[in-house]
């Protein structure tokens, strides 16, 4: 075990391999508030990568409904439970200790609970690299089933999932949100750590984590160790497969991309415009280069509006989420860490810059390496949480890897009015 720096935990942690970082890191921001669960992303991935025999139950990208849903079933509850057991065995009461706001490398404070790697090392005797579990076939086989019924579990036969007693009114306690998931191309991947074959590697150019299809011997240690359950076993080839981050597009080899890095299939297909994906430049020590004009860096590190998914697992995932405004805060804090309050405050009343950057989502397929904002007039004023808030019709411009303008969007969507003869002509 080596000591490695995990900025999401605000501390060093132990990991089987010493630090070694790519030049850039594949990363993405998802705005949960906008997802309509259309599954276009899931189908975009499936029709590109997993349409062959043996991949029927494989959803490298999936969208599940929280709190009941999960693919594989109850994955997060199970991993959280394993960590809870490990912490209580060790007598650790996990908590986030505040750090000084100025500490760039500890934006959410410092977490003192055990990660999946540390929990494995604390087992007596230690036998594995990360705590985890192996989901059974039926846990993968029916994604989304029973997720959107009023109560969890299998509905009574013939009930169509409707409750006999109806929903309880007037107090409306039901809540849900959609969680969009794919491999997080983690900085400290558990799949890679657990593979005794060393068949999993993280690419030095973009941090994409891949399974070498020639080396894998189907041990499924990665399936067991990945806390996000994004490494999957394929029965027809008897080896494991996972999201490849559409690497030909990231490399700019897609014929459409004009040689420029292009966002992945699941990102660029999203009609809800919830997804923005990019490449983040890393310093030699692995920390994010301070590049506030990169939209991902701006949202994650400067505005802190997007948060990592279950940072306490310890893999330093590179997918970040703008949390849903309406879900209970303690649930969100468990899922995204202690940055939730601040992130939601900033999302509810976005700064002038953030509002502009949010317009970049799904405005182009090219990866945006830099943005600039051209200021426009004030178009709206209101009060949010008792404070005045103004909206400006700024223009945000995104630039590709070579610094060429890739997209230009205004905050206010242009309005076109149909001429009278064609109103309601559909």
């Amino acid at each position, binding site marked *: 075990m080596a000591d490695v720096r995990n900025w999401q935990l605000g501390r060093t942690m132990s990991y089987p391999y010493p630090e070694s970082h790519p030049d850039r890191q594949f990363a993405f921001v998802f705005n949960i508030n906008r997802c309509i669960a259309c599954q276009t992303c899931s189908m975009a991935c499936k029709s590109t990568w997993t349409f062959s*025999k043996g991949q*029927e139950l494989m959803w490298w990208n999936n969208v599940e409904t929280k709190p009941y849903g999960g693919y594989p079933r109850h994955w997060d509850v199970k991993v959280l439970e394993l960590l809870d057991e490990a912490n209580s065995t060790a007598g650790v009461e996990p908590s986030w200790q505040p750090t000084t706001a100025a500490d760039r490398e500890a934006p959410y404070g410092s977490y003192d609970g055990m990660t999946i790697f540390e929990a494995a090392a604390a087992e007596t005797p230690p036998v594995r690299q990360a705590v985890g579990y192996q989901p059974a076939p039926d846990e993968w086989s029916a994604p989304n089933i029973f997720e959107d019924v009023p109560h969890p579990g299998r509905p009574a036969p013939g009930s169509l999932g409707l409750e006999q007693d109806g929903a309880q009114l007037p107090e409306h306690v039901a809540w849900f949100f959609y969680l969009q998931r794919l491999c997080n191309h983690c900085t400290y991947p558990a799949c890679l750590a657990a593979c*005794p074959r060393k068949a999993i590697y993280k690419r030095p150019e973009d941090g994409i984590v891949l399974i070498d*299809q*020639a080396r894998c011997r*189907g*041990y499924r240690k990665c399936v067991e160790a990945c806390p996000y359950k994004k490494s999957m076993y394929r029965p027809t080839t008897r080896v494991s497969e996972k999201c490849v981050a559409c690497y030909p597009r990231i490399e700019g080899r897609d014929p459409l991309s004009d040689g420029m890095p292009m966002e992945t299939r699941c990102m660029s297909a999203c009609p809800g415009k919830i997804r923005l994906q990019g490449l983040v430049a890393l310093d030699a020590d692995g920390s994010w280069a301070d590049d506030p004009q990169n939209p991902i860096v701006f949202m994650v590190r400067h505005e802190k509006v997007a948060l990592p998914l279950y940072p306490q697992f310890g893999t330093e995932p590179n997918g970040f989420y703008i949390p849903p405004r309406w879900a209970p805060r303690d649930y969100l804090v468990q899922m995204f860490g202690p940055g939730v309050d601040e992130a939601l405050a900033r999302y509810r009343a976005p700064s002038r810059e953030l509002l502009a950057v949010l317009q970049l989502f799904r405005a182009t397929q090219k990866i945006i390496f830099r943005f600039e904002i051209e200021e426009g007039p004030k178009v709206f004023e209101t009060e949010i949480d008792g404070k005045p808030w103004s909206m400006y019709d700024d223009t945000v411009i995104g630039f590709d890897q070579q610094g060429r303008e890739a997209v230009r969007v205004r905050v206010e969507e242009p309005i076109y009015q149909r001429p009278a003869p064609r109103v309601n002509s559909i």
Partner: protein
Amino acid sequence: MIPRERRLRALGLLLVILTALLTAFGVPVTSAQGTTLRVVRSEGTLPTDDPWSSAWNAIRPVDVTLSGQAVAPPRLLLPNVPTVRARAMIDGERFAVLLEWTDTTIDEDVIDVSRFADQAAVQFALGSGTSVCMGQQAGALNIWHWKADWAADLAARKDIEQRFPNAPQDEHLPPDLAEGAGLGPDGFLTGRAAGNPRSALVRPSSVEDLVAAGFGTLTSEPLERQDVAGASAYRDGIWRVVMSRRLDNADPNDAPLAVGSAIVVAFAVWDGAKGDRNGTKSVSAWLSLVIPGREMSLLDHWPFLAMMLVVLALGAWLLWIGSRQPAVGLGGPPS
């Protein structure tokens, strides 16, 4: 009284002679301490295809104790299979080893993500200084790895339909599209396209012929050099697996199995039902596998006897010289 250093010198000489004698008569005194597996010369045809043949039953097996694998993660601390019984035979052409162990279930399904197959392996040390743990830089290993799933595949490769008859059967690539892309109706079979032997449509044997030189270095030999045959049968709670190969096949990556030689071997067994795979296995310590030569007459030993005579003469001469010197020098008590 005989001086101390002279006594030591005589003792050393005795040890040299003893070692030479033991080695000459096939008793290993190298790193392979422990049990010896003596290969039996087959009277009739070698029962390579029939693990339960009476010819195998006629040989007394060597009980080999297995322990867990506690060196590298994933570890197994207590063995899931505590003993394996080993027998070995040769005829003029082939060498065969039979492993037999108790297992309450047949596990040959690897279609189901949560199931693992029963497996067994023999590893041969290539050169000296090899570690029992997958070989080290100093010496490589040749590994014969039998897998119950590969054995089950031999007749007809198992596919999803056998394990999950009600699994969704998507219409995959339309034939015209599939053929245009050089694919079958099953579409892209990535592992197979990458040449992974696990994903292969047909395999020559249930035993994979591998080399390794340290953890994580296990490498399958190329298809044309996969020359280990396998036969296995499960009966009344017992697995029997025969692995066989031509005697010395002149492949430097393969165990040199020459008549009249000894080689260090170790065994490993995996119980699929317990989730065993990779490092979670029950392993033996090194054993000496002794392949007898033809029967030898006393005269066949002449080079050895001549050498012994020289050594004895030299020893006697040294002792005589020693007795004429005063007792000084290294290690002598101060006078």
